[in-house]
């Protein structure tokens, strides 16, 4: 058995265990994304970085324990790095949250993003309405697909469609995908845009949103297809 000190509390773990096991046994929590039990432990997402006593950051999921190892799981440096790593992961993640099976509370990336204040995921990721009872599917000009998540999708939860009070998503690919999603269920982009002007009318990002939605919407009808 090996002694490891996690955030000051001592804990015993068997030889060869990973730092993550020790941290969990000490009662602390460290987020992991790419860890998949014994199938994948390559530490490529870097979300589980923790700080050793010498200031080095190591991935808890793959770093083997050694006697007397001291580790801190929540220092300012760890939080800052973790926040940026999540942002980088999000930058390459296709945010078609409205069609994702993990929406409505099962999206780990969303949990992490909201915990670390990273914005950019559509409200749909938080909205549990799926399939027929999704407001866009029912034909309402819900702004969920193009509004930044963080409100827990209060409006859709209570039945009405999102009117974008948390500000627009500015990622081009998400906006294009959203336009296709609207077109697919016959929601006219003009209504969506006019509804969006309530809160976004004055924002500089609004022209970006409008141009992206309009181009891909027209492409959709020019045979671009969903």
């Amino acid at each position, binding site marked *: 058995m090996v002694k490891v000190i996690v955030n000051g509390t001592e804990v015993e773990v068997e030889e060869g265990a990973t730092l993550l096991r020790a941290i969990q046994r000490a009662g602390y929590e460290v987020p992991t994304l790419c860890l998949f039990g014994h199938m994948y432990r390559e530490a490529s997402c870097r979300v589980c970085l923790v700080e050793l006593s010498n200031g080095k950051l190591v991935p808890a999921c793959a770093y083997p324990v050694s006697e007397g190892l001291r580790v801190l799981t929540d220092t300012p440096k760890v939080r800052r790095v973790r926040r940026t790593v999540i942002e980088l992961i999000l930058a390459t993640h296709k945010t078609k949250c409205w069609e994702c099976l993990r929406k409505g509370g099962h999206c780990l990336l969303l949990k992490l993003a909201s915990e670390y204040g990273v914005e950019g995921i559509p409200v749909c990721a938080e909205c549990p309405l799926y399939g027929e009872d999704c*407001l866009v599917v*029912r*034909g*309402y000009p819900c702004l969920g697909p193009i509004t930044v998540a963080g409100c827990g999708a*209060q*409006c859709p939860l*209570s*039945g*009405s*469609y999102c*009117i974008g009070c948390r500000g627009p998503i500015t990622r081009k690919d998400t906006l294009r995908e959203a336009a296709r999603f609207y077109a697919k269920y016959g929601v006219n982009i003009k*209504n969506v845009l*006019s*509804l969006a002007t*309530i809160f976004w009318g004055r924002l500089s990002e609004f022209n970006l949103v409008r141009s992206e939605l309009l181009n891909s919407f027209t492409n959709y009808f020019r045979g671009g297809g969903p």
Partner: protein
Amino acid sequence: MRLSEVIEVDRVFGHVELEVVIDGDDVLTKFRVVHDPRFIELAMEGRHYLEVPYIASRICGACSIAHYLASIKAIENALGIEVSEDTEVVRDVLNSLQVIQNHLIHLTFLALPDYLGVKDINSLLSKSRDVIKLVMKLNSLILKAIKVLGGRIVNPNIPYVGGFIREISREDLNLAIKYVNESRGVFSEVLSKLRLKDLPLLKDVANNYLVLKIRNHYLSSSDEVVASDGHVFKHNEYLNYIEEVSSSWSNSKVVLYKGKPLHVGPRARVSKYLGIVKEVVSELGGIDTNNPFSNLIAKLIEIKYLLEVIPNILSDMRISKLGGGSPHKSEVLNGEGVGVIEAPRGLLIHHYVINGGRLVHANIITPTEINARHIELSARELSINLVKNNPLNISKLRSMLSFLVRTYDPCLPCAVHVSVVNGLRR
């Protein structure tokens, strides 16, 4: 005897100044709203009719439900959209819940300190902490009920043009009933703990008022307005009787009914429908509807009565399915309509002209705007009484006048939704 006082009235929704000028025996009072206009009606113009309610509900957080429902009624009236009776009932109940919540907040935080002769809420907290706690508990219960029916405690989103977006089921209603019943018990506790002093005496110099004719139960909406002189007129004929005059010293306009100042609000409603609420009135020791200060008593009456009547209204409903389904598609895209509702502070009128599905013209008349001139008259009357026989006591004058303005419970942000600058309004 010459005197000129400007009183910045505190503990009201927004900023207002009451200017009193006494020169010899003529007294002049000015009710000056210092908010700058927010051009809400202009913001609404050009919008698709489905978006207008969202803007309307954001005029003011206190009675966002009243504005939201009035806006929906105006649209439905303009486009000739019929809604079921059950929908009307649930909407009225939702509105009544917010009326209760508003009265609670106004009484405890704004008016009660005067009523109990204390300086403000902090001193009230130290003296009667348990009352405040109870009121808070009561308030949260009411808010829960509002959330069940409205979707959110402020800026509701379940009610929608033509009905409700989300299905309102039997369980929702039962849940609302449960909360209201619970809050009734708490309210009676509050009443028992409250030792209300008697109100200052004042005669209402122009005691004419307007109230929305009730459809069936108290505070239910209809499309007719009844005046104190018994005259009843359709809500879309309001322009023939009500005129908006811009006042030179205040950013808010002033409303006259047949050329005469008038007041609206709980006192007007209670005095009109005294018959319906008479048991509650007697329980609370009667009301002199001619005294402007009795507005506070009227609020208590409305709270008590509504808490008793709402559970029955909701349980009597035999609803199968209410709301849900696909969005509202109206064939008619042009029209002019008026939506009237009894907001917590009185009669609220939304008047829309819709052309091609877009709002072309909007005019909103809010209760505080209607009460503006009446407040000045009452203030003049009160200052005359105070100055006439006893020696001038400036601080007493100031506190009494502030107390008077507070009883009218003006909501200044609503009062200035359109600029007064002459010529701007077409």
